[in-house]
């Protein structure tokens, strides 16, 4: 009785929030988009906020398809639906969406969903007339009938059909005829599509801007039609083995093209590549990774392309003269990738970087032969560098890094995995105040001292990788977690000296969403519990080979975590109870439990049944025979996919010894 009266008083009294106009609340809501939980709390303030929040939401990314009807009823202005977290979307779900979505819906992502057919698609397309974007990637079961259904979406502008292997030329023909407004089309891995399908797309969809034809079995025949497309800006021909040097018989101007990707086209030599490129004088980005044709002839011919900004030669064999020839290009490159290029030496690279002073991004991953000479030229010449990747450049000596922070102050991304850098280098790098991503994996020369410098200087750090940097202890991590509150991704795998103290301090980084502490044997459940308390955003947790982690580490997650998606509990001391507690995390999708002694078949079965949204489960093969087949059938019908492993129990190696072994292997 009293409750009722109270409520009526509350309702009669003027709600202070009502003073705010809807527009102002909308603007406030715009600021809340960073964190989904904020929007939720906001909607629970009062009725009017609830309704306003319902009207404000445009994007929906549900975890389950079961409640779609209710949710769509509440959020009637949603225009984008992302179903990539729902493993099973049936025709019924699509019917619900099409019933509620109607004219509002403009974009739908079905890239991870199975089980729907052309009937559901047809219904969706018929009801949602304003659909502009459909992502049907990985729908390997869809056939031409589904394509014919999509063809009814007359306003469609973006269509992704990656790995739709059963769609043939006929289906693509239907789409080409029906969806005349298409601007972006990806047919990557659509193995059933050939020249005819691509040709008809080029004939019918004159507005195409981006066309991805990677790994299609097309030949030169369809290229003339593609070259007729007036607005095409981005053409991806990766791995089209059917293309060869006869690419262009007659030279045609292809003025709109800005990006060309011919990676892994093994049968195209520099002749064909050049003839294609020369048709596109406004080319800005050229990707010629993993081809055999990068030689001096090609690079000399590309000299005149003044618009070129970004070039990728990943995995090609480049010589000193090629690098020098790139150095003589008219264009001033912004981005250059020589990742895994064989033959990159100091002489050529130094010449190149001295000419291209405007370089923003440079990828030298696995250019193993460069030394401090190259690095000093890079640092002195390319002062506006924002991204430098030089994993496994082991010949660059430690003292080469000393001037890095001084000369390249704008660095945002730095990959020094497997390098000789030491604390002095880190001290210098700490001057890069914009640094957001720092990878120091397998840097055996660094200690806490260096990391303390990083913690002091790089306050914007979001990603830190300390994989197997065995010299680090708690004090380094402490400094970093204190100085870098923005940290989102931390990898401290196999830093064996790390204890719970590190995790306690990391728990202050509230944005942390990925944590990997494999092989940190000193870490216990209490540290993990601290993370659960502090980092509510945590989505990925990998505690493999932490034997001191048990059920008590899991319980806080069951209680607090609303974002945990991926957990690896292999080689831990978790038992059935811990696993079952995790099972009540509604958003959990991926679970790996190998070599967990405390788990019984019954416990695993119970946990699997209790989990609502698991899609990927990695288990030891022995459980396959211990659990009934019907259970797996049932779970697979719910969208689980099982991966069976029968690796033997691994004994961890000494970190230093591991490094030596790694070197021997090369």
């Amino acid at each position, binding site marked *: 009785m009293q409750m009722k009266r109270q409520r009526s008083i509350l309702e009669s009294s003027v709600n202070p929030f009502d003073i705010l106009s809807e527009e102002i609340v909308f603007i406030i809501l715009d600021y809340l988009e960073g964190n989904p939980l904020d929007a939720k709390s906001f909607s629970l303030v009062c009725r009017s906020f609830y309704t306003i929040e319902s009207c404000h939401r445009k994007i929906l990314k549900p975890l389950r398809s079961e409640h779609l009807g209710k949710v769509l009823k509440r959020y009637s202005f949603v225009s984008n639906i992302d179903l990539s977290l729902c493993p099973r979307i049936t025709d019924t779900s699509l019917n619900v969406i099409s019933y509620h979505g109607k004219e509002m819906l403009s974009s739908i992502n079905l890239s991870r969903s199975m*089980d729907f*057919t052309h009937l559901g698609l047809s219904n969706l397309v018929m009801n949602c007339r304003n659909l502009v974007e459909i992502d049907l990637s990985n729908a390997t079961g869809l056939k031409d009938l589904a394509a014919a259904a999509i063809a009814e979406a007359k306003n469609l502008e973006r269509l992704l059909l990656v790995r739709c292997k059963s769609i043939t030329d006929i289906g693509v023909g239907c789409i080409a005829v029906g969806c005349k407004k298409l601007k972006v089309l990806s047919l990557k891995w659509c193995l059933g599509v050939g020249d005819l399908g691509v040709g008809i797309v080029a004939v019918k969809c004159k507005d195409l801007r981006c066309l991805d034809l990677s790994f299609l079995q097309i030949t030169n025949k369809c290229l003339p039609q593609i070259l007729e497309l007036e607005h095409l800006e981005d053409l991806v021909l990766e791995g089209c083995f059917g293309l060869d040097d006869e690419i262009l018989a007659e030279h045609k101007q292809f003025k709109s093209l800005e990006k060309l990707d011919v990676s892994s086209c093994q049968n195209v030599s520099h002749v064909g590549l050049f003839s294609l490129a020369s048709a596109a004088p406004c080319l800005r980005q050229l990707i010629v990774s993993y081809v055999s044709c990068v030689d001096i002839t090609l690079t000399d011919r590309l000299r005149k392309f003044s618009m070129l900004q970004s070039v990728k030669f990943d995995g090609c064999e480049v010589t000193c003269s090629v690098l020098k020839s790139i150095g003589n290009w008219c264009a001033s490159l912004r981005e250059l990738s020589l990742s895994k290029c064989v033959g990159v030496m100091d002489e050529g690279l130094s010449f190149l970087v001295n000419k291209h002073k405007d370089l923003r991004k440079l990828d030298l991953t696995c250019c193993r032969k460069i030394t401090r000479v190259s690095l000093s030229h890079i640092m002195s010449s390319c002062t506006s560098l924002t991204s430098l990747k030089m994993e496994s450049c082991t010949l660059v000596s430690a003292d080469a890094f000393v001037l890095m922070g001084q000369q390249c102050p704008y660095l945002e991304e730095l990959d020094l995995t497997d390098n000789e850098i030491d604390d002095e280098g880190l001290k210098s790098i700490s001057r890069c105040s914009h640094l957001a991503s720092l990878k120091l994996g397998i840097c055996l020369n660094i200690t806490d001292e260096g990391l303390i410098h990083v913690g002091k200087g790089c306050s914007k750090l979001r990603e830190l990788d300390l994989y197997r940097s065995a010299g680090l202890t708690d004090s380094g991590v402490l400094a970093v977690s204190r100085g870098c509150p923005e940290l989102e991704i931390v990898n401290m795998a196999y830093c064996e000296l790390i204890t719970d103290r590190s995790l306690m301090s990391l728990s202050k980084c509230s944005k942390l969403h990925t944590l990997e502490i494999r092989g940190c044997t000193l870490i216990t459940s209490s540290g993990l519990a601290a993370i659960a308390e502090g980092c509510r955003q945590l989505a990925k947790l990998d505690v493999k080979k932490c034997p001191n982690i048990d059920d008590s580490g899991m319980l806080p997650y069951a209680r607090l975590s609303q974002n945990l998606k991926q957990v690896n509990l292999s080689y831990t001391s978790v038992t059935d109870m811990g696993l079952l507690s995790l099972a009540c995390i509604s958003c959990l999708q991926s679970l790996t439990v190998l070599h967990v002694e405390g788990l019984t078949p019954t416990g695993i079965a119970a946990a699997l049944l209790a989990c609502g949204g698991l899609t990927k489960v990695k288990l030891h093969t022995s459980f396959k025979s211990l659990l009934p087949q019907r259970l797996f059938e049932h779970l697979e019908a719910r969208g689980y996919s099982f991966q069976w492993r029968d690796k033997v129990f691994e004994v961890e190696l000494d970190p230093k010894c591991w490094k030596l072994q790694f070197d021997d292997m090369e």
Partner: protein
Amino acid sequence: MDHEKRMHADKWTEPSSSRDTHIPTNNQSFSNFDPAQQKWEESSLLDYGMRIDSRNSFACDTDNQNQTSDPLGNNTGNATEPINIQEWDPRTMLNNLCFLEKKIHQLQDLIHSFVGRKGQSSGRPDELLVQQQQLVTVDLTSIIVQLISTAGSLLPSLNHNLSSVNPINQLGHFSSVANPSNGAPRNIFPKNTNLNKVEDHSNLIDTTGLCGTELSNMEDQENKSDDDAEEGENLPPGSYEILQLEKEEILAPHTHFCTICGKGFKRDANLRMHMRGHGDEYKTPAALAKPSKESTSEQILVKRYSCPYIGCKRNRDHKKFEPLKTILCVKNHYKRTHCDKTYTCSRCNAKKFSVLADLKTHEKHCGRDKWLCSCGTTFSRKDKLFGHIALFQGHTPAIPVEDSKGLSTPANEGQGNEATSKVEQINFDNQLNARTPVSFQNLVDVKGLAGEDLANFFSPFETNGISGFHEFPRPPFEDSESSFSFLLSDYTQKNG
């Protein structure tokens, strides 16, 4: 269509290619058209082909003979190589003529030298004379053979190009040229052993000449759609003679009848070939030549045909009259345009034709036209379909029926039981979810029910486990929405 009958017809046609056997007309099952006749038409084509081949082989024979009979054995081999009639090349002809010229000059020089030596040496004149005679004979033979073979191969090609000129005139002209050359060696060398061979060749020329004339006929036959395809022809009115066959004439199975036995033929040429069997008097070139043309004057009017159907564009009374080229065109045109389509395709039971050959052409492709356009047009080739679609606005590829059948039952990929059980369970789940917001216990219960066989397996869990779950308090706002992650797309992308 009676397949067995057709089989028979096929069998008959095979022996018919050996000249004089003719198909007995047997019209039991076909009202006004006999497939056997159609076959005959085709077989006659075959016949010509055979004959052309035999002519070629003859030519080869002459070649061999020349090489064996020619003791010098030099150039003659090249010069008499068989020349393909279809490819008439003025250059080869010129080559041949040059060669002849050279040979004649050589012979002249030779005889001149004999004349010169006669005065000088008188010893053993007989022996020398024999030697000289032999030499001259050899040279002359080579020249004659060359002349004949060249003429024989050139004549039909000339014919082919100048179809308005009566070929038999040429033939006659040639024979008048050839005869004196035949005669010449006979006069000079009465004991010429090669003479018979030469006569054989002249016979050969006759037959090849005939082939040539018939070949031009054959081309007309081959062009089945003649009545539509001759649009380009622009003969001025009056420059040709218009013939109009009556309807009965057009539809009559035969137009040429043997005066001796009464057998009917569709072609005069076939009749003439038939007549040879009735006696030697029909084997002369004159009898084998086209009889009608012999009597005509030099100025021959080109013949064109008119369709008897009044109001038809092909009828001569039509304002924009367009004549038909041959009788075959008339027949095909009349049947296609003005007759019922009596032949139905036995495979699709949809397409009908009035010309049997059209049906046969269709049957070759029927069922294989799997490429279908939304407009209903079928194509035997995928690229043709796509060309069609690229050309027309709004046309789109149609998906074959089998394909759609396969898809109408979802989740068909799994094997039998497994798939169906899956579907059932999914439906079950869906129904449940639609009705009630799923609470945790419900879920567990339902899942337990769904896997009935598991009941035993989970008995310890269900009794103890459920109460165990209550130990973990759930978050206060765990309503139905909380199971959705309200994540911004970019946020999850980073995660994902």
